[in-house]
């Protein structure tokens, strides 16, 4: 736990100290505001407006999550600083979890700063705090899954561009699984639909303020799966 905390602290502090980190925050908030203005602002009902906010923000969160995570290991491998971690008595899971938690904390900061939009909507009409909380929980879990994909892609290579492309392809592919499922026959249809990253678990659940335990389990399983892949990749590359 100590090693996870040390790596988390260093990584998170690096985000806070870097200009690029704050540019990402600014761009994310701007994108959330612009997309909400474009797609959600004109809805008649506050609850619809809130759904539109979470709908448009989910796209921003997926993109920002890939941007935040694709470099976390690849950059260290490229600069040589990963050698410090790989020759220290630190386990691979501590490196992966520490870095993932740092990116998740930074994403959380972005989501917290974006909360003024739902609060403004709440002031306009009748929506509950639970609706807002469930929507944000969905964004947070969706972002967490994308961050885990990015960390895994980052563990594969020293080339950050390749890591970014791999992460984007995986996230994009998983968002399209639902569309793919529509052209398949049962039981593959159900399998592909349930594996979809966005349509089933976010759009039909969290985005509408509906909390399903299976959606929570799905996102946690995705995070676990991709972080496990990242740990195994690091293990294979560290002592080969």
């Amino acid at each position, binding site marked *: 736990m100590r*090693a996870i905390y040390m790596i988390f602290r260093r990584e998170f502090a690096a985000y806070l100290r870097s200009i690029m980190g704050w540019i990402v925050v600014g761009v994310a908030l701007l994108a959330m505001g612009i997309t909400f203005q474009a797609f959600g602002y004109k809805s008649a009902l506050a609850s619809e407006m809130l759904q539109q906010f979470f709908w448009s923000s989910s796209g921003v969160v997926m993109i920002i999550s890939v941007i935040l995570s694709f470099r976390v290991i690849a950059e260290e491998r490229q600069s040589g*600083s990963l050698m410090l971690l790989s020759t*220290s008595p630190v386990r691979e899971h501590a490196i992966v979890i520490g870095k993932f938690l740092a990116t998740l904390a930074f994403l959380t900061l972005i989501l917290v700063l974006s909360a003024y939009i739902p609060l403004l909507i709440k002031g306009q009409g009748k929506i509950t705090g639970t609706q807002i909380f469930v929507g944000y929980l969905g964004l947070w879990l969706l972002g967490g899954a994308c961050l885990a994909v990015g960390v895994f892609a980052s563990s594969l290579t020293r080339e950050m561009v390749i890591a970014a492309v791999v992460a984007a392809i995986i996230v994009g592919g998983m968002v399209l699984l639902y569309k793919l499922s529509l052209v398949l026959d049962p039981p593959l249809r159900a399998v592909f639909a349930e594996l979809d990253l966005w349509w089933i678990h976010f759009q039909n659940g969290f985005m509408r303020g509906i909390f399903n335990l299976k959606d929570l389990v799905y996102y946690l399983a995705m995070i676990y799966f991709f972080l496990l892949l990242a740990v195994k990749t690091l293990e294979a590359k560290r002592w*080969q």
Partner: protein
Amino acid sequence: MIQVSNLTKYYGGKRALGPVSFEIDKGETVGFLGLNGAGKTTALRILACDLRPTAGAVSVGGIDALANPHEVRRRIGFLPETPPLYPEMTVQAFLGFVCDLREVASSDKKAKIGNALALTDLTLVAGEPIGTLSHGYRQRVGVAQAIVHRPQLVILDEPTRGFDPRQIVEMRKLIHELKDKHTVLLSSHQLAEVSQTCDRLLVLGRGQVVGAGTEAELGALQEPMFSVELTVRVPDGKDGGAAAVLAALGGIDGLLGKSVPTERGDGWELLISSKRDVRAEVSRAVIGAGLDLLRLDARAVDLENTFLRLVAAAPAAAPAPAPKE
């Protein structure tokens, strides 16, 4: 402290190292000497438990590095060719982070960071971000991170890489100071650096240890030990030219090759390499044959010559072993 037996590393089908075997005692400072691509970095990365060898056994402080690399990592400090640094951190914060990684007790952290800063002469820049420091200072920070937790074994890969002469002298002094408290293993292709800082040398050539010992021991292994260069003139009226010169020196042990005419055409140059100092013998032979001795230079074979001869004698790399069925 370190026992290495038949250590071998292949990258795909290409042999980078081995099989090599050597032992290093506690408190020794040993230099890995070799040309670029000789296998120095591969050997050090295996000892630092970053690379897993293809074959062979490595023991550090009595611990089998293959069976328990994590325990070995607790006992080492490693400076790779490129210092592993985080530019956004201050020197002090970075060393604190390294202490945490290396499991230094919180109560000891401050003292150990202070010692490392003092030893590497970084105290004045302790509060500066690493990214703002010069190359020399960054290299020092790299050394500081390798020693801050006071490991049993310090491994430094090319510690003076990219240094100017003043920085090289300072780094040499620093390594001398490390010798009191640590077993130090360093690599370099700079002969002066290794010969002046290390108790013992391991010369690597084409992935194999081609020489081991102190500078004097390595020099003694090589024969001949003396190199004599001379210029001889055939006086006017005497026949024979180069043949006369070679005939005069025919009895001298270690005459290399043929005589070549001097640039000015006033004589013949020759090279003799012998394990004895043959200057007197050569001068008597030349004058006794009625020839003129224009020049006679002799020098003991130095580490540079020894090194080059050892490396040149290294066997070519073997192909990768066939996979076991």
